[in-house]
């Protein structure tokens, strides 16, 4: 009897470790942003559709905002577009688009066809800003608070459910004004 105790304990312990490991493996939905609680990186990029204008993230200092990283080459971005339009219609918070490694004409055409949920779209053709945000796959959506810190990052298509639970709940009560 006694000689079975140790192997069984070892087996259960190992199975437990592996179970936790599989459960928490860094797949797309569980990976936490390294930037959480840290200041969002500053960036200054051209504005989509107006080559003469630049958009600087500092323009939004002092109020919360949302950054959505997308590309016309990204299938999931099409999936989340409906939700983004619905979110934009609520006018709760500025929704800034980051056109990631994309062709400007294709991006413009996409917005003309599907509707434009963004207050402004910044063009990150070389992917430098995306790297600074630790982006590894579009779409990704970041919530930046009034002090300029990243409070949340959602990887994958945005849904109204995720919006209500993780984004709207982080907005100051009683709206922005």
């Amino acid at each position: 009897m006694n000689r079975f105790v140790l192997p069984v304990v070892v087996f259960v312990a190992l199975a437990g470790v592996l179970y936790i490991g599989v459960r928490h493996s860094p797949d797309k939905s569980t990976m936490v942003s390294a930037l959480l609680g840290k200041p969002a990186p500053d960036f200054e990029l051209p504005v989509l559709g107006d080559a003469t204008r630049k958009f600087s993230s500092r323009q939004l200092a002092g109020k919360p905002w949302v950054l959505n990283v997308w590309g016309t080459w990204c299938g999931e971005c099409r999936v989340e577009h409906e939700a983004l339009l619905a979110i934009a219609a609520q006018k709760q918070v500025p929704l800034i688009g980051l056109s990631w490694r994309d062709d400007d004409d294709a991006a413009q055409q996409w917005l003309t066809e599907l509707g434009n949920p963004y207050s402004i779209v910044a063009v990150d053709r070389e992917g430098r800003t995306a790297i600074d945000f630790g982006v590894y796959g579009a779409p990704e959506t970041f919530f930046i608070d009034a002090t300029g810190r990243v409070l949340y990052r959602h990887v994958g298509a945005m849904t109204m459910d995720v919006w209500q639970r993780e984004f709207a709940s982080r907005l100051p009560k009683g709206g922005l004004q």
Partner: protein
Amino acid sequence: MTRVLRFIAVAMLFVSLRALAVDITVLPNEQLQQRYEALTHGLRCMQCMNNSIADSPVGLASDLRRDVKEQLLAGKTDDEIRASMVKRYGNVILFTPAFNSASAWLWLMPVIGLLAGIFIAVRIVRQRRYLVEQDDSVVDGEEGSR
């Protein structure tokens, strides 16, 4: 026919293996090149998980390689470059994670496993030896009684 084959064989000698690699970046000197290759092989391509950025053809990997190259040319040390990657992507981007309180168990696990294995092996050998000795004494006894 043999002539053609011979020609192909000789021609293949002139094919550079580097041309077949995903990454064809060339840095101004051999030292930087070696550091570049070591660094890029040690950073995970976050999109494809188990490839390094040196081996991955996706756009993000080439952006990260460009980032490594630019930091090298700017005179950053290897540790600074790795730290800048961890700051943006977290520890998971390093194939060899740093030893700290969160990763200690990861590093110590093999040592603990080895010690446990030795402990169990020693116990089994001792037990067997004891049984064999007992067995011998019984056999001796039987013979003695004959």
